[in-house]
């Protein structure tokens, strides 16, 4: 069953404080570009884990693949 990239976008933005996300995908494979001030000072591994953690066991299952690019957001 296809998953709407918009759903991933809203869940990332709801799940990570201050996150802005752009998600594209074909319903199974997705690419997410996420920026958040919550990423400040974290390693890339830790930043990507925060994104994966939003979806838990859905990764690899309902969400077949999620490619992630994270950036630290400027504090406005």
């Amino acid at each position, binding site marked *: 069953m296809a998953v709407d990239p918009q759903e991933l976008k809203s869940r990332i933005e709801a799940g990570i404080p201050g996150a802005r996300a752009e998600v594209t995908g074909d319903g199974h494979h997705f690419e997410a570009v996420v920026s958040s001030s919550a990423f400040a000072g974290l390693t*890339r*591994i830790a930043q*990507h*884990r925060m994104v*994966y953690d939003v979806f838990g*066991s859905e*990764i*690899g299952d309902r969400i077949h*693949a*999620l*490619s*992630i*690019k994270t950036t*630290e957001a*400027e504090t406005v």
Partner: protein
Amino acid sequence: MSETSNPMREAIQSAISENPVILFMKGTPEAPACGFSARTVAVLQSLDKPFAAVDILPDPRIRQELSAISGWPTIPQLFVDGELVGGCDIVMEMYQSGELHSALGLEATPPPAEDAPISIENRL
């Protein structure tokens, strides 16, 4: 979580600690079974860094236990000196920035200049 005997997990843990560079992937370096694994292998091979490779496909428990150990849900997973470096996205990013060279102990081509020069500029 109880520390019951788990031969599969122990085998994976020893493989991670015994191999300075080890890639858990779908398929083999000669015949990768997934685009993400293929890209990661290509990067490692382009650096001429010898690495151990484990195909996770033959037994679903490999992936299950690996992800339990690493806390990382996707494949591939690259470990250097016993530490998870990342999956395909992170390895590619590190390759492009030159960080992967230093992480692998190679003569670095351009290492990343300073930490977060962009954020400093933007604040000024």
